[in-house]
């Protein structure tokens, strides 16, 4: 009786009666409300800043920085802009994070496996390391490494030196720096091409082996394919590589490439601290693999090392990779503690910029955006790794 129109006409449901449309409307409403809220907050902040006579906006990025940094991967001077100073900070953060991630992973895997070793001494040392160091705050560990490293090294005028080319003092480790000259690019290109040629050759040989059953010992052919053209190109271009040697000049070492103690201390502290957590994740992953796998592998005659490498760890990786991602992100964010020891990473540089310009909101927003981006990139990469190792659901 309530149906209007003929039988052929479908009932048009009001938006709030149709579950699908209702869901869509509600979600749209939530998005609009959230968006309005964010806009209101931003507007509030900007108008309050204006009312308090505080400068706002990102125009300061073009101004002259006026301050120097002790170490940077790109050319930088106090005449550069604040934007370039930020770039220096970001590169230093990426550098220490990359170094830290590599070292922490190595330490973590080694210690994680060591904790499961049948050798009592190795197991105890690994356990002591993990239990001891993961409970000490990272900042304290950073200070320890910094002052321990500094304390142990001599003043520049009394630096340790190896054949007068490598110097170690409390200002840093100074190495000769390679300075590529004009035709330097030729040799790596030739090297690359000859490596490709070598790969093609070995593919062709393998193909021939499968087709004709001939087994040709490759012998020194691959080596020749790569080495000879490279050597020839190097000699033809006249060995275009100069070295800038560090030498003591007044208070410091001029020339060469330097690795400052701040970087080393931060790198050690970050790796050793994060290594403990990675070790636990690795140990958990290994323990999660069914014991039957180990038994079967041993029964097939694989040694302990082969079992671990070929059977257990590939399966353990499924369990290890997600917490590993967490630790990498944690390490990247913890690198901001370098500000406490004067390492010019992003937090340190942004702190100086914040002080000089007084624009706390803009500088901190920029810093947060950078850390967020770096972490999202790391997480995305690790998610790709995760997809490669996870269990394929049917």
């Amino acid at each position, binding site marked *: 009786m309530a149906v209007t129109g003929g039988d052929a006409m479908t009932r048009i449901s009001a938006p*709030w009666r149709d579950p699908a449309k209702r869901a869509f409307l*509600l979600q749209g*409403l939530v998005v609009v*409300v959230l968006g*309005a*809220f964010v806009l*209101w907050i931003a507007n*509030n902040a900007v*108008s*309050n800043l204006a*009312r*308090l*006579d*505080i*400068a706002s906006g990102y125009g300061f990025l073009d101004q002259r920085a*006026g*301050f*120097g*940094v*002790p170490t940077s991967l790109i050319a930088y001077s*106090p005449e550069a802009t604040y934007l370039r100073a930020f770039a220096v900070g970001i590169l230093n953060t990426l550098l220490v994070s990359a170094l830290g991630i590599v070292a922490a992973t190595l330490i973590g895997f080694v210690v994680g496996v060591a904790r499961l070793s049948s050798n009592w001494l190795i197991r105890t040392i690994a356990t002591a390391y993990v239990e001891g160091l993961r409970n000490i705050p990272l900042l304290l560990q950073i200070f320890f490494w910094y*002052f321990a490293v*500094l*304390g142990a090294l001599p*003043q520049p005028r009394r630096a340790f030196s190896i054949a007068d080319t490598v110097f170690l003092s*409390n*200002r840093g480790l100074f190495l000769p720096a390679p300075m590529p000259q004009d035709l330097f690019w030729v040799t790596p290109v030739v090297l690359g091409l000859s490596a490709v040629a070598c790969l093609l050759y070995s593919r062709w040989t393998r193909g021939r082996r499968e087709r004709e059953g001939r087994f040709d010992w490759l012998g020194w052919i691959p080596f020749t394919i790569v080495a000879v053209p490279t050597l020839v190109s190097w000699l033809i271009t006249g060995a275009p590589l100069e070295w800038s040697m560090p030498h003591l*000049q*007044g*208070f*410091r070492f*001029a020339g060469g490439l330097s690795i400052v*103690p*701040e970087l080393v201390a931060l790198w050690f502290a970050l790796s050793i601290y994060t290594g403990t957590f990675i070790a636990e994740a690795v140990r958990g992953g290994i323990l999660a693999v069914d014991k039957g796998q180990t038994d079967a592998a041993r029964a097939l005659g694989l040694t302990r090392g082969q079992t671990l490498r070929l059977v257990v760890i590939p399966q353990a990786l499924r369990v290890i990779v997600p917490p590993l991602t967490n630790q990498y992100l944690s390490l990247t964010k913890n690198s901001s503690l370098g*500000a*406490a*020891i*004067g390492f*010019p990473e992003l937090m*340190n540089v942004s*702190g*100086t910029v*914040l*002080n*000089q*310009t*007084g624009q*706390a909101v803009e500088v901190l927003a920029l810093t947060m955006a950078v850390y967020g981006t770096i972490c999202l990139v790391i997480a995305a990469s690790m998610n790709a790794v995760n997809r490669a190792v996870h269990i394929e659901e049917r």
Partner: protein
Amino acid sequence: MRINSMAAVLAFIVLAGWGGASPARAAKLDQVKAKGFLQCGIHGALPGFSTPDDRGNFTGLDVDYCRALAAAIFGDANKVKFTPLTAKERFTALQSGEIDILSRNTTWTLGRDAGQGINFVGVLFYDGQGIMVKKDIGVKSAKDLDGATICINQGTTTELNLADFFRANGLKFTPITFEKADEVVAAYAKGRCDAYTSDRSQLASQRLKLADRDAHEILPEVLSKEPLGPAVQHGDDQWFDIAKWVYYVLLDAEEYGVTSQNVDDMRATSKNADVQRMLGAQGDLGPLLGLPKDFGYQVIKQAGNYGEIYERNLGPDTPIGLERGVNALWSNGGLQYAPPIR
């Protein structure tokens, strides 16, 4: 029902947003009086300016100024709470209203005055930037420091002045900046840097924390002008006036010879009209600022005059041992000059 609750939430947010937009700011003096104490931002670890004594109470030049201000408002110099702040937090704390006044040996510059929304009250201490080195590196002048590594506190005018000085003299240096003053001193003491730079008063003060004070010397060059003084937020003229006139009372009291010892006497017996007006025995100057009539008397009685405050914290008899120098009264050849109280 879900729609109704959603609509209710939305309406609430919109109304709250409208209602919450830009309320008028109450006068700072009224806020402080309502709170019952003054919130003062200080350094907290700088002997002579603001540092805890062996009983945990803060003492120092900046601290005494805040106590004088509290005495003027409440008649009790102890109605003040201190917030130690790093160089990075100090302006944000003041701008956000977390502290009522910033008394943290802050240099008065145009960038801060205009770009940070603060007003400088006056110059409590005329200072300049200096460089401290260990005596055994054999450097007698800042111009011999070509190529040196120098430890600096992050985000202070010090960083910029140092870069300007070295560039102007065609010299190179490597800066290592740390967030906290203690970290700078520790790294300098460990030998990470050849020199440590800061305001000369800070150098004298931090030298007290080093193991062997006599092994360090402060080089003669003064790299910049560093007028240090308290600051308040923009937008409240009455509060700015109060802060300024408490500072002027400190100076005028020293000029007229009124000290915390003789202030009662002076109030009762002095024939000097300036003294009588300052101590509230004559005239009605306090209420013009919104303060009690005897605010000048309370300031001097409880905090002392500028000379007493200086001698107590930075004077030749203290471990820091700085002479008045340019911080003497104008009548003694220095730069401290205050307008008359009338």
